[in-house]
């Protein structure tokens, strides 16, 4: 059994540095997810939805949050890609 998931909205602003944008977005999303909902939280869906000259880029998304502790040795729920951690 994987932990029961819950869903939460996420919104954050980011002023990117020079250089590739996507790694910065992923890092900021991971940090904001953890800060908002704990280390089990992961972005399920996100996009840049706004641009502001002062605040930077607005990201909106939905988080998946495990609401129970993960088992010590999780068994894959399915034969292919990615189970909820």
């Amino acid at each position, binding site marked *: 059994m*994987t932990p*029961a*998931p*819950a*869903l939460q*909205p996420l*919104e954050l602003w980011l002023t990117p540095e020079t250089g*590739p*944008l*996507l790694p910065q*977005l992923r890092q900021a999303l991971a940090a904001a997810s953890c800060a908002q909902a704990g280390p089990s939280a992961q972005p*399920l*869906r*996100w*996009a*840049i*939805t*706004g*641009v502001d000259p002062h605040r930077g*880029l*607005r*990201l*909106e998304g*939905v988080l*998946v949050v495990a609401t129970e502790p993960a088992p010590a040795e999780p068994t894959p*729920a*399915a*034969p*292919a*890609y*990615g*189970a*909820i951690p």
Partner: protein
Amino acid sequence: MSLAAPPLPTLLVIPTGVGCAIGGFAGDGLPTARLLAAASGCLITHPNVLNGAALYWSDRRLHYVEGWALDRFAAGELALAPVARQRVGLLLDAGIEPELRQRQIQAAEACRASLGLTIGPVQITEAPLGVGLSLGASGSSWGTLANPEALLRAGERLVAAGATAIAVVARFPDDPDSASLAAYRHGSGVDALAGAEAVISHLLVRHLGIPCAHAPALPPLPLDPDLDPRAAAEELGHTFLPCVLVGLSRAPNLVPEPTSRTEALHSHQLGAVVAPAGALGGEAVLSCAERGVPLIAVTGNPCLLEVTAAALGLTVLSAGSYAEAAGLVLALREGLDPISLRRPLPPLSAGRPSGGVG
């Protein structure tokens, strides 16, 4: 001997729930997808583009890939393996009333009997999913589930019973008198259901690793004589399910990278990505752009977002319409430098190559 150039695998993204003038309604992105499939010979796109309730178009050049899997494909984490057919399991929300549920099952029966699709088994969730609809700060739609666990467990049961793809039907809240629904039916505003639909299908695909897509269960709406043609596909019948079943019936398998499967389509083979010029901030588009895949930004598909190439520092090929975008895809497929088709033609200079994106 064919005179046609080899296919140019092309990604078409029309984001869900942000009010795109083309593709923001009920399968009204389909003509665009057909055109780009013909121009490219291989188009990968997502259910929001291809689903028109009872209307659909089946074309072996069109690859039906759910949005979460599309993002992972673009990031190089999944490959797409073509299949002759999928066995599509039907996952029904326990919150659907018996008569409406029977309508969904009859739509599936019709697809078996009239189209020859392989459908089944059917699973009903152990508890109502509890779909809730919301709008984000940008005005884009999103949604949530009160009971995502029930969705995932029903999906697991379907996989255990032999399903290789899953069509999920969830009961969505009734709101026939809302201003947002009226605006949508009259051709403005956002599809309020689309964001929650994406959340449902993303959850399932992420968890199960197989193709999944969603159709909402709603009772028929009262007749509206002023209905916008782009929303008309959702007024044709009792369910939105047939397009999902057809799309999933030949949706490619999702194969974790790296894979040596020779028949699989890999993200490094992508030759172009096409997206609305104001909605370039999604993961798939950014993944492609950062790997140097030519990005065609269509200014003729406005939406409520203004996330442009200039704002993100991206280099794009600008197209005024999808017809122009199809011309650019065809040029890339034929090995033509798109810059050579425009005037003025900038001269060569030291340190600046000709070629591609500008």
